[in-house]
């Protein structure tokens, strides 16, 4: 049995006017950590809400832990853990009271499943008498994860768990997810951060409600067509303009401290021609190196294609 299956799920809002999810299909193996990667408004939360039985799909079928999301929603609600994108605990209750409350409504107790949350809970235990609203962002996420885990769910849904959390806490959070994976819990996680995608077993890239690619992070980047170059110079601002004006440029965007550039045609002398062009423009301390594509590069590449197709058809 698959942990999650989606078969041509479509979800629209405003009586069909807004298409949020467009025939999305994917499957999760048991114990798999699956990432849903895409920018804001790509349809990630809609997919989460359909799978957590909060919204009815307009079309298609989906199952969670073998149960149908429409007909057997009560059975699903018994066995999943859900952490919504927004911090959704009681701000005026203390850490301990929140945890106790959620344990009780899930018919369990903190003691019963303490082993499962121990690693996470020990970090927030010193603050257990503090009200949840007064916790830092990272602490809040840890508490929310504890609350979502307290009943030992079969499938865990984490909707953008690291949005608005500092870099250190984000790393810690993913460490925790890794440990949960060893407990055999299937995790569906969404994130707008491409660097987190690499930590999943498999990822689905989503944009405009469409699933564009489903594969392991390693295979996903291998699918990048052509070569990718990192370009640096003394004047980065002018470099961007110069590169975008260059007729051989397919795409160019700022990525950290360099420009990621791809050519329309990867001919052997492409780099030397570009070097001449840029030197002619007065660029100094020029560095052009070929680099392996990252998930973000691939994402931009395929969404570009998507947009081109759109503009051609329309």
């Amino acid at each position, binding site marked *: 049995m698959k942990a999650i299956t989606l078969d041509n799920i479509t979800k629209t809002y405003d009586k069909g006017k807004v298409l949020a999810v467009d025939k999305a299909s994917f499957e999760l193996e048991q114990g798999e950590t699956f990432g849903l990667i895409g920018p804001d408004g790509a349809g990630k939360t809609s997919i989460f809400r359909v799978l957590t039985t*909060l919204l009815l799909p307009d079309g298609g079928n989906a199952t969670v832990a073998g149960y149908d999301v429409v007909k057997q*929603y009560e059975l699903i*609600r018994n066995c*999943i853990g859900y952490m919504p994108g927004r911090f*959704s605990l*009681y701000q005026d209750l203390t850490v301990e009271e929140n945890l106790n*409350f959620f344990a009780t*409504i899930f*018919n369990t107790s903190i003691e019963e499943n303490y082993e499962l949350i121990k690693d996470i809970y020990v970090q927030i235990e010193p603050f257990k008498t503090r009200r949840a609203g007064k916790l830092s962002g990272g602490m809040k996420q840890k508490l929310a994860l504890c*609350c979502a885990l307290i009943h030992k769910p079969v499938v865990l849904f984490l909707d953008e768990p690291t949005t608005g959390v500092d870099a250190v806490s984000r790393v810690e959070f993913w460490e925790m997810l890794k440990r949960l994976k060893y407990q055999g819990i299937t995790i569906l996680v969404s994130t707008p951060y491409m660097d987190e995608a690499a930590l999943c077993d498999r990822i689905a890239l989503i944009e405009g409600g469409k699933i564009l690619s489903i594969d392991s992070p390693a295979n996903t980047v291998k699918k990048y067509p052509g070569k990718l170059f990192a370009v640096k110079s003394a004047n980065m601002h002018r470099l961007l303009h110069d590169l975008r004006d260059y007729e051989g440029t397919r795409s160019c965007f700022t990525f950290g401290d360099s420009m990621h550039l791809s050519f329309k045609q990867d001919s052997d002398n492409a780099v030397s021609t570009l070097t001449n062009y840029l030197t002619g423009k007065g660029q100094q301390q020029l560095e052009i190196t070929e680099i392996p594509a990252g998930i973000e590069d691939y994402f931009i590449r395929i969404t570009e294609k998507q947009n081109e197709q759109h503009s051609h058809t329309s």
Partner: protein
Amino acid sequence: MKNAVWKQLYAFIQKEFYHVFRDRKTLLMLFGIPIAQVLLFGFVLSNEIKNSKIVVCDYAKDYASQEIIRKIEASKYFNVQKATLTHDQIEASLRSGDIKMAVIFPADFYSDLSHLNKAQIQVIADASDPNTATTLSNYLTSIINDYQAEALAQTKKPYSIIPQVKMLYNPELLGAPNFVPGVMALVLMLICAMMTAVAIVKEKEMGTMEILLVSPLKPYLVIIAKTIPYLLISLLNLAAILLMSVFLLNLAIKGSVILLFAESTLFIISCLALGLLISVGSTSQMSAMMTSQMSLMLPTMMLTGFMFPIENMPFWMQGISYIVPSRYYYTIVKAVMLEGLGFTAIWRETLVLAGITLVLVVINVRSFKIRLA
């Protein structure tokens, strides 16, 4: 399984009480408003009235009547004018507003008192201003009681002087004690409907409703757990209002207290159901509050008859008043509390109220959303 449901319910209700007791604004609203309203009205009621013009008609002119009149004259509340007026003359002076009250001693006042140990004094008050009328007759009664106590100490005779109080123009004293049932309806409506609506909408706003929905909690459990705290708080408030009206406003509960609480519980349930309905249609705490005020508070104040008589309203407004639950509750409380009537006198109102409540509960059960949209 049964046991698990009780545990869930207990945890949920406990959580609701945490919310209530940790939010000062809520707390102030829940307990401050009822007390403030009763005290406010109570202050108006017990406002001191000084130097009211009254006329004393002494047909007895004996030892006892003179003594009592001296006491009345000594009081700062009365401005006494002595005259032997006929009944028609008294009425004319009351109507013209020259005097507020007339006190009449019958011819054989002292002989009745000394031989029979009891006598009567007639008191006629202008009750078109019910507050003043009750206050004045209360002052007079306490002066007479004073006299009785002194007489008992001196003569060792237990005199009993009975003031026969007659309220002219407004014999039922409409206005004065009537605000208590009105305030009760208003406060219960406010607490139950508005607070429940706000409490549920808050869960939606904070996103916690999402987690509650994605849990094994049964929807009916959420409803019960959300409403029980406000039911309890409302009953507590009801008790506070009743205690205040008895001890601060000297307004006795004439009928059965148990019946009063039973009828109130019915009304509270209808208010809770209204609050739930409002929460279904609201997306923010603000809108829930506004909807409650516009659609519940206003009709309760306008259409229950406690501020404006329903009979004087246009026909269509009278029609609307028939579906306002507080109208029936107001009638019931007036009957039980002020007139001391039993269930047989109010079964019709009770039945209608129960009917409205049932309809509201059914609508609620049907409209409860098991999903987000």
